[in-house]
């Protein structure tokens, strides 16, 4: 996985074809087709909105809570989808790996890129909500670009690591499902972080060290409302960089682990 290989024309073409295939096959045979990429998070949003905003009234203190909620769900949805896609990608493409030699990372990248395209489509829907809710969008919103990059790198790191582990231990898929469930509730997606702070400020700080929590809250802050509590609002000093450090260390280790194991994929699948 040399840098020069990543941009070699052959690998670019292959990546492109695999992404196109993934995308074409995603809603193959369903009547609504690609509309489902948008409808799924919308349905989830409607449920969450009714339960958490209307019944439980968690969004009382937050301006534009519906948009805030939808954005969180969409971002979390990307993380879930891309890591699960990535986790299964190597096994799912076993037929290719056993019969032709090509850089294996292309498979993992293609799995996450098609999720990324899905995320961008979903973000367009969020933009529509932003406009209808009368949210004031400022230049600050441009921060979304580096933040999405961080999110993608984090998801890619997890995908590399999980896909390589999955070749050896198929249990990892089930473990990851459970982990995602737990992480969903450990991340301030449905509930405002301020609720945690009133209980325990320490707990809030620990929650916000997770890169996913940091990214979701930062994007909400720059795009929707300054009511979104960020890591910088509750922590100071070098600790605010912990999420970035986690992402950096993860991507390096994951690529190292993936490279080390990818030579044996064809034999083990």
């Amino acid at each position, binding site marked *: 996985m040399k840098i020069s290989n990543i941009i070699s*024309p*052959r690998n670019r*073409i*292959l990546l*492109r*074809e*695999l992404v196109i*295939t993934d995308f*074409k*096959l995603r809603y*193959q*045979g369903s009547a609504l087709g690609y509309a489902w990429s948008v409808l799924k998070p919308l349905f989830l949003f409607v449920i969450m909105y009714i339960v958490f905003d209307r019944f439980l009234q968690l969004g009382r203190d937050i301006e534009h809570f519906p948009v805030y909620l939808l954005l969180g769900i969409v971002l979390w949805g990307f993380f879930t989808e891309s890591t699960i896609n990535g986790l299964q990608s190597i096994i799912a493409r076993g*037929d*290719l*790996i*056993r*019969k*032709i*030699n*090509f850089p294996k990372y292309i498979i993992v990248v293609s799995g996450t890129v098609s999720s990324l395209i899905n995320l961008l489509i979903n973000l367009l829907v969020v933009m529509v909500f932003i406009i209808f809710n009368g949210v004031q969008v400022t230049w600050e919103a441009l921060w979304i670009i580096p933040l999405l990059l961080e999110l993608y790198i984090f998801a890619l790191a997890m995908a590399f690591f999980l896909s390589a582990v999955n070749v*050896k*231990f*198929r*249990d990892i898929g089930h473990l990851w499902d459970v982990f995602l469930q737990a992480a969903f509730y450990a991340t301030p997606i449905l509930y405002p972080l301020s609720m945690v702070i009133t209980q325990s400020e320490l707990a809030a700080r620990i929650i916000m060290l997770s890169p996913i929590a940091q990214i979701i809250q930062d994007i909400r802050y720059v795009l929707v409302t300054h009511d979104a509590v960020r890591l910088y609002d509750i922590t100071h000093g070098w600790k605010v960089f912990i999420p970035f450090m986690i992402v950096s260390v993860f991507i390096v280790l994951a690529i190292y682990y993936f490279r080390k194991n990818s*030579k*044996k994929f*064809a*034999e083990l699948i």
Partner: protein
Amino acid sequence: MGQQKEKAVKVDNLTKNFQIPLEAHSGLKQKLINTLKGRKGYREFTPLNDISFEIEKGDFFGIVGRNGSGKSTLLKTLAGIYAPDGGAVHVNGTLVPFIELGVGFNPELTGRENVFLNGALLGFSRKQMNDMYEDIVDFAELHDFMEERLKNYSSGMQVRLAFSIAIRADADILLLDEILAVGDEAFQRKCYAYFEELKQKKKTVILVTHSMDHVRKYCNKAMMIREGKVVVNGSPEDVANEYSLENLDSKAIVEHEGDAPDDEDSQQKINPIVSDFKIELTSAKKINQDDEVAIRYLIKPSKDALLKIEMDLQDIDKNTYVYSSNSDFRKYKKSELTEHTVKFKVKELNDMSLRVNSSIKDTDGNLVAYVWHDDAPTFMIRRNDYPGGEAKTFAVMYNRGKWIE
């Protein structure tokens, strides 16, 4: 001319190990149990053991070997699908493997989409694929089906489409598995025409095959491997001979399976006078027209009897009897071991693999004992007096005849 000597592939001391799990499940639990019990949880298997060889540019190189000899592992290691555990594979130029046609074909995509996907896997750009798309469709004769999904294709149509893309591959070295030549006769002919074309173009080709006819026809060099080692590396003729010799024994076993019930039937009918009947080929396993064949018989009857031995030579490939020889009736004494040897030459026979089936009969013509099928000794004839050095015939008898104007 210097080009001729340039190496296309160089394999040095290549070794490949596999760890075959002893349990069906690969999971954390099993791993944990194995670690706790101090078990490895797998057994080592070495399909390639210290293999070295070279292929020059322009060679049509055949690799033969029986099932389980390590052929496929070698193929996949050359293709870079498996990483070597020891030694190295040096490939000079681009190499495209065809271990299977239509790699990456997806039944849910249309024929057209699959062409582009498969092309990308073979290293073609979208532009290159656009340029040759019409030719591919023409060659596959599938104009009306390209917008249909692949799952609605017959298997023959799928193979045709895949093959039409495959032959576009313009790599320096092509790695072909014989399995490619599947399908109906017309398709096989196309396949062989393609092999012929590659040969004409002096492409570097590595062909893995079971067919000695193909080795002789297309290859200029060949190699045989057995149990992960190179047995012969040389001319196609040497390799084909060695391969046929090795296959003599295994063929008998295959045939035996089908014939087993017959044997049991005949076993019940035989008159068990002879308790000990052994046959041994005492001459060489591979002979030419001038060599003598010698077969030794050991017979021990359980009571005094008047018996004769019948020997039949069976052409294993054609499954016909070509030669027979009977002894005269003679008296055999109870519990006494008698030894005979029959000697003969096979001047009149063409190249073939032969099995020596033998039986003992009493004066009423009843079968008393026999050694057939996988128990029977085998040998092969390789004449050295063919004009041009090759047996270009399927005939049983050798006869040059005299042609008179």
